[in-house]
């Protein structure tokens, strides 16, 4: 019994420690972020940030688009098979449009980015830690937070919302294709229906969510990398844990945000 309590206590403390470290790192990065901004900051950091944006955003485009298309088809077909029974097939349009703008666009993107880039951050920083590159940065009078973390976070803040918009577009487009083939509804008309069913509030909610997801993915990835102690096996473990933890936290954050927006939207 005492053993159980001991384990619970230790686990709680370690989780609190993790969240605390995450917070400290977030604020430190925000302070160092000015250096990564264009014009006012250091041009080398900005260049690194652009490089990261390409890596997180542009290179992930085909994968995210394809994932969104598939999910769009799935959602439209699953919705249609039920709604058809009530003769309410046109509600599939609302389902897909609202579902993708509010929810699936940001969420799918977050999952794709955490798998591609969150793990890459952890692996890159973890390797730098193991090979003493982080120490080398420090003794060369650089701030690792500013040098390594700030460009990555800035890039994620830009790339993830952009990708979310792309994902939402492709998901809705897939829904349009489904409607075209099943009911011969023209694509132009479909998009006109879509625009009437989406509100500005949905788009803003989606942007807030994707900024939060970007923060979670970038910081969990970097923190896992910085916590690497020991050899190459630790890098592998940190990479796995970066993906698992960031995906988990993204879904928890999504639940919290959706709840907030649900209650805010009612009034």
């Amino acid at each position: 019994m005492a053993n159980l309590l001991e384990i619970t206590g230790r686990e709680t403390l370690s989780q609190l420690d993790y969240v605390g470290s995450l917070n400290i790192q977030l604020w430190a990065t925000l302070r160092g972020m000015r250096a990564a901004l264009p014009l006012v900051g250091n041009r080398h950091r900005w260049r690194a940030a652009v490089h990261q944006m390409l890596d997180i955003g542009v290179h992930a485009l085909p994968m995210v688009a394809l994932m969104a298309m598939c999910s769009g088809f799935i959602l439209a077909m699953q919705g249609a098979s039920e709604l058809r029974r009530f003769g309410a097939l046109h509600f599939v349009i609302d389902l897909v449009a609202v579902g993708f703008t509010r929810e699936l666009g940001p969420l799918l993107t977050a999952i794709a980015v955490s798998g591609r880039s969150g793990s890459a951050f952890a692996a890159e920083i973890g390797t730098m830690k193991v090979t003493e590159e982080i120490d080398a940065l420090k003794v060369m009078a650089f701030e690792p937070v500013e040098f390594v973390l700030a460009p990555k976070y800035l890039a994620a803040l830009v790339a993830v919302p952009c990708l979310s918009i792309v994902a939402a577009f492709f998901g809705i487009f897939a829904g349009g294709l489904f409607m075209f083939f099943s009911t011969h509804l023209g694509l132009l008309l479909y998009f006109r229906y879509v625009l009437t069913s989406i509100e500005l509030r949905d788009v803003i909610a989606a942007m807030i969510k994707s900024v939060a997801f970007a923060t979670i993915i970038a910081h969990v990835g970097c923190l896992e990398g910085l916590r690497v102690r020991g050899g190459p096996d630790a890098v592998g473990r940190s990479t796995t844990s970066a993906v698992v933890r960031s995906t988990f936290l993204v879904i928890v954050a999504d639940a919290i945000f959706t709840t907030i927006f649900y209650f805010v939207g009612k009034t």
Partner: protein
Amino acid sequence: MSLISVRDLVVEYDGRRVLDGLNLDIEAGEITVLLGGSGSGKSTLLRQILGLERPKSGSISIKGTDITLCSPADLKAIRRSVGVAFQSAALFNSLSLEENVALTLREHTALAPSVIDLIVWLKLAVVGLADFGKLHPQELSGGMKKRAAVARALALDPEILVLDEPSAGLDPIVAAELDELIVFLKETFQITALVVTHEMHSAFRIADRIAMLFDGKLLAVGTKDEIRANQNPRVRQFLNRVPAKHTAALASYLERYVQGQEAKR
């Protein structure tokens, strides 16, 4: 006044004392070699002197500034006058050799790119890598990486050069070349160097002063001749390459094991 002075330094990891009240002075313009076996606390002392970790107590001053107490800005200023070559070279893998050497020059100075290119070429030429500037670290051999790390450490013309195990893992010829390089740097640039090593031969080749570390304490500090004449049994053991008495190590292991078992109960 010595360039680096360490006073009563105590470092503990999880309650285990790694450095125990250590005092050390490093004089300007000299090569000081920190000699000691594995686990003697050499690397720990080095990390302390570089300000990468904070001690439990004691002070380390570099050029008169106590780095255990000073502000991050002061620490940065001091770090610009210290060049470090790490044991694993720690070159940035995403950058070419030239970019590795140019990094501090680009970011910490306002020099024109053409001047930086020239300095980088000179630094690489000093370590004999002038033709390899375009290569990335993973394309280099171990010895070349170590020399490249020295070139990077020299980039800002530091007053103090710190080398962690420069000859570890190198063949004797390359190791000897590196020793020559260190002596050359001292003679031409009047550089102060702190070299951490466990290789006797290399230590006696380059050192002006040798500090022998054992179990977190300094056993002996002195010139080569003073160390050779030292009669401390541990020093003799290290110099004559006598294996440690395993019985003593085993006994202390068993003692710790038994204590651990009792603590668990």
